[in-house]
């Protein structure tokens, strides 16, 4: 009896463990990017897949291959890619999805639903809007376009903050929240080279417009998403640049008035006017100039979003819901008051104590 038990257990272990669901690495089409566009009723996909066959190229670099497919739904189109690809697509290592601008204008609800439901893909991939033909964008390099684009986005975010890279999981959080609208960076082709362009803003699931790179920076400042950036302003009729490497934004709401407090600290990176930088009053003057300038630009930007787009990308409604619930029912996006307070602290002047061109 004991031997029969051991035999039965051994049979079960060998026959019904993960082997049932096994997929060999060689049989997987490791997908790095999915580009989605729509033509009439059909979704058209361009799928970037890693070439896993041994490569004979000299530099031994990883190459990719693009597959195109179409279907009435995105999932159908994804599965139909098998007609061209010898391998089943595997989305666990997806770097990004690229959504066609026209499709985004029609609405991205179906895309959100598909990837929300999908258990295979991790939700940490980035989402981008393509202003140009998706295939041409993904064709620009024979390396992993998705990886290089995502790295560029991250570097941009780390050192310039004039774009707002967003992972699908973060986008989903905003999409599910009825009190905040989505913002997605866009890319376009510039002489066969991909460049990160304006930031797309949404109302519901539809793209309704763009904010430029400066406005994206103001948006990031309001949302407390800036790690490092540079600000340029006119000081004594000459352009001056400060580098900001520490930011903190807090927003409070009381009686329909949003108090936005932005604390920035950094150093003078470039100054073209002849001033005495050893004088603390001059430093204070520079700080004041930048504070006034930035305050004015941020105010104009918020007003533009309210007047032109009427979309709450800042989540003011969400903030009121969470922090000032008793006034939430009276929320009117067009009738909000703002009290913007910017405090810039210039701690250093780089290597120099005095200006070099005195």
């Amino acid at each position, binding site marked *: 009896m004991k031997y029969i038990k051991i035999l039965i257990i051994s049979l*079960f272990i060998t026959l019904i*463990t993960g082997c*049932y669901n096994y997929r060999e690495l060689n049989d997987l089409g490791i997908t790095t990017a999915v580009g989605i566009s729509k033509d009439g009723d059909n979704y058209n996909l361009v799928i970037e897949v890693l070439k896993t066959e041994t490569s004979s190229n000299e530099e031994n670099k990883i190459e990719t291959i693009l597959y195109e497919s179409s279907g009435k739904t995105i999932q159908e189109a994804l599965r139909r890619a098998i007609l061209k690809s010898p391998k089943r697509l595997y989305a666990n290592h997806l770097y990004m999805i690229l959504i066609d601008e026209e499709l985004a204008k029609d609405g991205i609800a179906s895309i959100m639903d598909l990837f*929300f439901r999908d258990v295979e893909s*991790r939700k940490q991939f980035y989402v981008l809007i393509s202003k140009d033909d998706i295939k041409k964008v993904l064709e620009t390099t024979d390396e992993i376009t998705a990886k290089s684009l995502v790295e560029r986005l991250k570097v941009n975010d780390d050192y310039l903050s004039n774009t707002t890279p967003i992972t699908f999981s973060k986008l989903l959080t905003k999409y*599910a929240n009825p009190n905040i609208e989505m913002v997605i960076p866009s890319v376009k082709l510039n002489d066969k080279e991909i460049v990160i362009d304006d930031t797309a803003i949404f109302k519901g699931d539809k793209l309704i417009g763009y904010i430029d790179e400066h406005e994206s920076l103001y948006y990031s400042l309001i949302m407390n998403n800036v790690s490092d950036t540079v600000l340029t302003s006119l000081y004594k009729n000459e352009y001056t640049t400060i580098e900001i490497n520490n930011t903190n934004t807090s927003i409070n709401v009381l009686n329909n008035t949003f108090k936005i407090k932005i604390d920035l600290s950094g150093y003078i990176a470039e100054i073209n006017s002849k001033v005495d930088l050893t004088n603390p009053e001059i430093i204070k003057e520079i700080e004041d100039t930048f504070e006034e300038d930035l305050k004015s630009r941020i105010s104009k930007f918020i007003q533009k979003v309210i007047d032109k787009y009427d979309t709450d990308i800042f989540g003011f409604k969400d903030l009121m*819901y*969470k922090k000032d619930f008793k006034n939430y029912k009276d929320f009117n996006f067009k009738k909000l008051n703002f009290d913007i307070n910017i405090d810039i602290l210039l701690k250093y002047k780089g290597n120099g104590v005095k200006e070099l061109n005195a």
Partner: protein
Amino acid sequence: MHKINLLEYVSTFFMIIMAPFLGMGLYNLLIKASIDSSISVIIGYILSFAFLIIFIRINDYKSNLDLKDKINVLFKRSKLIIILFSIALFSMSLCLSYNINNFIISQFLSETPIIYTMIILGMLIIFINSKDITSIFRVSNFLFYINIILIMIAIFGEYNKIELINMLPILTNGINRPIIGSVYILIFQIIYMFILLIIPKDNVSNNKHMNIGLIIAMTLAFILFLIIIIYTIGSLGIDLAMKYHYPAYIVMKEVSIFGFIDKIENFIIIHWVFEMFILLSLITYFINKLTNIKNYILVILNIILCVIIFRNSTLYNTITKVLIPISSTIILIIIIMIYLKIKKTG
């Protein structure tokens, strides 16, 4: 029967009440209490002391007897009570069993029929039940330490992604929702503590410190409930958290340690499988002791009924919403009857 170490007993108590939380516990709590789920946990903690008092009182009564013998001593129609208790608990085990297997299938083995994972888990349950009861407690104690380490990894790997503002606003719709949520915590999780009554108190060594041990285990479990809720709502936001079937697992996908150890959610989530394994093993042991039905028959019946009844996850959710409250109420009524009878007999 060998004696069970107090630490093993207490850690098993912790495993039992933790087990259903990551699956149907959290899902139902978020649906019922929404943003006030954290308040539900606090209310639930206070209410669960009533359960604990009843547990301790029954456990102290004729401490050399197990629950079946106590029922036989206290009631004339003891068989009916035992049958009702067993059916109710077995129904709950069906939901638990499907819940964990559905998670495994839906997240990792989409092409594998659910019966396969059920058979593997069932074999483990049959195997551990073929050993002495002390084996279950020893294994549980060992898994408890592993679970604490895994839970700590999840907590420290995720803390910087939490936005506490997502926990607001609380109590905007009054206190009713959080109270309903706390009742759900009691009937979906805390109720399982009573299966430990199948172990006579005298079979636990050093049992004079048992009560304080149980309070510590329950407090620890509730602290973890609260942390899991804060992490889930804080990370996903309440709107998205309520849309996921296994929201805590989705949150774990973002765990990153030192910024470079990531994609470890499948490693961490194993602690839930361990907890469910211990709970299902003890339920099987409990029903076996109460009814003398053989372990393997119980497990096979469980698998067959799960496959027949829960044909899809939507059906499972619909049935669970009815089955668990009814079964829990039956168990609770029986437990209160036992408690009152003990009180009456002095």
